Structure formats: structure tokens, C-alpha cells
């Protein structure tokens, strides 16, 4: 009896340990990949109003989400981005769209920001605001949280890569180096990025097959391969058992 109680306590202890975990942090860079960005109407500094799809149809877009009253990451984030992209000046394979997600920002705020960064004449960069910011941020998986005490947003330093078709091909969070930005500019121009393998007709045993029409994965032949060894072992076990019993008779 005593032994059983100790055993139960031990099992209880182990089970409690197993419960001691919280919800996992999402792998934010991987959310919303290959989904379409919301087609928001934009007011761009020094340009005519346009919709997002008109802009990315001209050339792929790197979207940087900031707000001008930011006392935190926004400024170093943009300075770093400018510094990392300085060697791509004049490169017309993409446009950097700096978009405010703060409804308080207006075009003159964004113009001042462009001036401060010395980018108001740079055609590669665009500074804009939109009245549909919540739909747009939702479509890219960006979730700023308002802190009323500090009167600041708590948010990620997010770059979103959008190709000419309006699909999000890659996201980067944080201050990133040129190598990562090269992967981003590559991915929005549909250049092969080694971190992802494209579908290949010579790949016969995929675990999942991505359907670009529905945006869903369908189970593939590869999953059978995962189950096969266990099924084989079970069959082997039963076959051996039957065979040795027969030979015993």
C-alpha cells in the first residue's frame, strides 16, 4: 500500500512537471507567408494617391511599419534599413514603402520623417499613410499594442516582402543585416531563396503538397513513409509470432 502511495505521488509529481508550460510564442516571421496583402488606399508623400496593388504591380515592395511619434525602435530601424540598402541605390527591382500605422500621423509628419532621414528625393523610398491601417496590419500579421501610460505603441520592427502579385513572400523582424535583406529582395523578385525549397516535379515523396489556389497543404506520399516502418515492424512481429508457433507445433 505504502509503495503504491509513493508511486502515485511520483507519477503526480512528474505529471505536474509536464503541465508547467505556457503557450508557445508564435514564430512570427512565418505567419501570413504566401497570403495576399490587403489592398489599402494610400496617400504617398509627394505623389498622387494610389492603392497598394497599383504600387506593387509596378515593382515589388518592402513594407516597413512605423509611426512618427515613436521614441523606441522606429528610428534606429529605418536608419539601419537605409544603411543596409545604400548599396542598392538606384536598384529598381523593389521599392521601400514606409507606412505609418498610427492614425494620428498625417502626410506632413511623414514628409518630415523622410526629410530627417535624407530620403525625400530618393525614388526608391516612399512614405505613406492610409485610412485602412487595421485591415492592412491584420493582413500582414502585425499587431501593435497601444500603451496608454507611455503613449506609445509596443510593436515589432517588421519588414514585409511583397511581390508583384501582392503575396507576402518573406518577413523579417528586428534590425537585420544585408544578407537577410538580400534574401528578402530576392524572394519578392521570385528569385530562389535557399531557405525554402520550391515545388519540384522530381520530388515524388513530399509530406505535403501546397495548393496555391486554395492556399492549403494536402497530405502527400511522404507521410506514408513516416508510418511505414512502424507498420512493417508490427507486421514483422505478428508474422514471426505466427511462424514460430507453427514450427513449434
Amino acid at each position, binding site marked *: 500500500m505504502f*509503495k503504491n502511495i*509513493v*508511486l502515485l505521488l*511520483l*507519477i503526480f509529481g*512528474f*505529471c505536474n*512537471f*509536464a503541465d*508547467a*508550460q*505556457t*503557450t*508557445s*510564442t508564435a*514564430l512570427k516571421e*512565418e505567419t501570413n507567408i504566401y497570403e495576399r496583402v490587403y489592398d489599402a488606399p494610400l496617400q504617398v508623400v509627394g505623389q498622387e494617391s494610389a492603392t497598394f496593388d497599383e504600387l506593387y504591380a509596378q515593382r515589388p515592395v518592402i513594407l516597413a511599419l512605423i509611426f512618427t511619434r515613436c521614441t523606441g525602435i522606429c528610428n534606429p530601424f529605418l536608419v539601419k534599413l537605409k544603411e543596409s540598402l545604400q548599396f542598392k541605390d538606384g536598384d529598381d527591382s523593389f521599392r521601400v514603402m514606409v507606412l505609418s500605422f498610427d492614425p494620428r500621423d498625417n502626410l506632413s509628419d511623414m514628409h518630415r520623417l523622410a526629410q530627417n532621414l535624407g530620403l525625400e528625393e530618393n525614388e526608391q523610398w516612399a512614405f505613406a499613410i492610409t485610412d485602412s491601417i487595421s485591415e492592412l496590419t491584420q493582413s500582414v500579421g502585425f499587431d501593435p499594442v497601444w500603451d496608454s501610460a507611455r503613449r506609445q505603441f509596443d510593436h515589432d520592427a517588421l519588414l514585409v516582402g511583397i511581390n508583384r502579385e501582392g503575396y507576402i513572400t518573406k518577413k523579417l523582424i528586428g534590425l537585420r543585416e544585408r544578407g537577410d535583406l538580400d534574401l528578402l529582395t530576392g524572394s519578392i523578385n521570385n528569385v530562389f531563396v535557399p531557405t525554402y*525549397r520550391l515545388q*519540384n516535379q*522530381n*520530388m*515524388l*515523396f*513530399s*509530406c*505535403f503538397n501546397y495548393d496555391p489556389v486554395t492556399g492549403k*497543404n494536402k497530405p*502527400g506520399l*511522404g507521410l506514408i*513513409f*513516416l508510418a*511505414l*516502418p*512502424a507498420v*512493417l*515492424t508490427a507486421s*514483422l*512481429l*505478428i508474422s*514471426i*509470432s505466427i511462424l*514460430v*508457433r507453427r514450427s*513449434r507445433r
Partner: protein
Amino acid sequence: MESIKLKKITSVWIIAVLTLFVASIVLGILMRLNQGGVLHQAPITFYSNMTIHGITMIGIWFVAGMAGINYLMERYVKTSYTANLIALILTVSGVLMLWAVTLIGKFHTAWTFLYPLPLRVMWAQWATPTFLVAMSILATGWLIWGISMMTQVLKVYSIPQVFAWQHFKKDPAVKTPPFILISMITLVGVVTCLLVAVLLMALYFAEYFSKGNFVNDALLMKNLTYFFGHTIANEMLYLGLAVIYELFSEVGGKPKWKTTWYVALAWNFTLIFILTAFFHHLYMDFVQPEGFQIAGQIASYLASLPAAAVTVFSVWVAVYRVKIKWTLTNLLFFVGVAGWVIGGFGAVIDATISNNIVLHNTQWVPAHFHTYNILGNVLFSLGFFYWFSIQFTDKRVSEKLSRLILSLLIIGGAGFLLAFYIGGADSIPRRFSNYPAEFTTARPLANIGAVFATVYLIPILILFYNISKRCLKILFSSS
């Protein structure tokens, strides 16, 4: 009873394992010294050493467990000497090829050889096919051995009996010895993961020889790699535990442990869940469906925690306020169980998704797997080796020397592991040949680890000398 041929072949296994163990520890110390900046190896040398260190350690402690259960299984069923011999020959061939591939061919994918690394040839051209052939040879040899032992057990016990299902009812007519239950559950896992290895090698060969006409799915290959790698690394622990269930009480002069409903239940959980626990290696793979990730976490708990609970309980009941005869064998077993449980806790912490986000690929990973190996599984097998070697001689290791051996193992092992754990908690990445200055604690910790690993090596050398000497006598004796 055990035949002379079985004693001799077991001696060969033991000598081979101990020799390779000493060599691999030396490689490990060199790696830590390199990380600490004391040595300056070329990165390729470091990664070649890391590759052969990992493969050898996994391989030797797997075969040590297999040799152990094969020897003890003879008490219950007649085992096949031929299968044992084939496994030995193929293991020696495979190991020689692997050492050549890494040390001469400079193959350096790490022991996990994650796809597509082996196919991106950055070493001698012959190294990749030779590596694949060597792995296939090892898998084939061990598969033959495993299936052979499974067959012999099934000749005596039915399927429900080997899994002790009759123990779920009161007063079963046939009682399954715990050794048979755990050995069989482990062998099923071993055979499954070796079949995975065969499939994995076939897919690698197909891509290697197809010249681009066939490519593999990276997700499938990673799943298969860890299905094999994770499972075999865990099953080798369970082989050691089967030996403990058989010998712990016997060495202490007490009656043998019996299978009860909870022992049967815990080990049946292990049988089922160990085969899906490997999903926890893919937490960072965003393309893996979330359901698999959750399954990986749940399976990690259910495969290990019930078995750990009943084993700790069994050992605790066997020693608490019980007068038993302590020898080096059961002391090694006892410390080994503690090391296994501590390392197991470290593993379960890492297998918890929310923790893995932080600990993934930090030194926490080598910390936990080294814990349940060097202070767990290795001690299980060393306990068996020592017990085996003194079966046929009057000379024992003196009590004083036993105490020294154990103290150095614990001090050396704990210090070596602590350097890894602190590194892991400090988010120091693993598998760096050199650490940049930004990781301020990485270098001193690596050097501390190397010093303690050297302390750990001393008792291993003493045991190597003691055990090998006796095993050589057995090997060359005529009776």
C-alpha cells in the same frame, strides 16, 4: 546458460566499445579546448571530429546495450550466435569506414547528417557514398541482430506475454520477467528505427545516383532522420535499463524484481510514444503542421515520464532502508539512474515547446544528452561490463578504488555538464568551432568543461584497463 562463444563475443564487444569510448572522449576534449581557444583546429577538422565523436558515441553505447541484453537474454531463451557475429563483423566494418570517411575524407555533416548536407560535397568525393554505405552496413547488421533476438523471445513468449498485457489482470498465469518486457519493447523500437534508417539511406542513394532526376523532400528527410536518430539514442538507454532491471537486485543479493501492472503500463506507454516523440526535433520547422508539434510534446512526456517514475520507484524501494550488498556494479547502476533522471528532466524541459523557443540549438542540448549518457547510460553499461568481467575471476576492484572511480566519475561528469548547462542558460549556441568575443562566457566555460572531461577520463581509463584485462583473459581462455 551462457555459452563459451557468447562469453567470448561479449568480451570482444566490451573491449571494442571501451577502446572507441576512450578515443571519442579524447576527441570531445579536443573540441572543447578548441572552443575555449586553447587549441586552434581548422573548422573542417573540428566538424569532422564532431561528426565522428557523435556517430561513435551513439553507435558504441547502442551496441553495448545490445551486447548486454543478448548476454542476459540467454538466461531465458536461446539466442543466435550467428546473428551476434554478423552484427559484430558489420559493426567493425561500418565503424572503420566511418572513421576513414571523417578523419581522412573530412566528411563533416555532424552525426545527424541532416539533408541535404551529405549531398553537398565539401570533402573528398568518395566520402559521401562511403558514408551512406557505412550507415547502411551498420543498419543492416543491427537489424539482423535485433530481429534475431525478437524471434528468439517470441519462440518462448506470445505477443501479449512479451508486452506483459496479462499483468493488467489480477494473478496472471504466466509472469513476464521485467527484463523480457523491457528488452522486447526496446527491440521493437530498435527494429522500427533501423527500418527508418534503411529507408533514409535508400532515399539518399536514390538522389545521389539520379543526377537531379529525383530529389527528396527536405521535410520528409528531416522527419526520417530524427525518427531514426532520436529513437535509437533513446532506445539505447532502455537497453541499459533492461540490464538494470535484471541485475540490480541480483547483485545486491536480493530477490529479482517482478513485473506489476504499473511497470507493464509504463513500459507499454514507452513502446507506443517513443515512436512519435522525435517530432520535438522539428519545432523550428514552420512547415511541419502544428498537430505534429503538439503530438511531439505530448509523446515526449508519455514516452519517458511513466518509465522514469516506475524505475525510480523500483530502485528507491530496493535501496531505501534495505540492507543490500553494494558493489561497483550496483553503485554504477544507482548513480546511472540518477544521471538518467536528471538528464531526462533536462530533455523534457527542452522538449516543451515554449522552452524550446529559447533553448533550441543552445548548449542546453549537449548538456542534457550528455547527462543521460555520460552519467546515465554509460554507467549502466559500465556496470554491466564490470559485472560481466568479474564473473570469471576472483579478483575484484578494491573498495577504495571503487570509491575513487565513482567520485571521479561524478565530479568529472558533473563539472563537465555544468559548463554546458550554464552555457545553455546563457544562450550560448552549440556546434560553434570558435566563439566570437561577444559570447563572453563561452570560452572559459569550454575550457572548464575540458578540464572536468579530463577528470572523467581518468576513471574511464582505470575501468578500461581493469575490464579489458579480464575480458582478454576470457577471450583467450580455452574454457
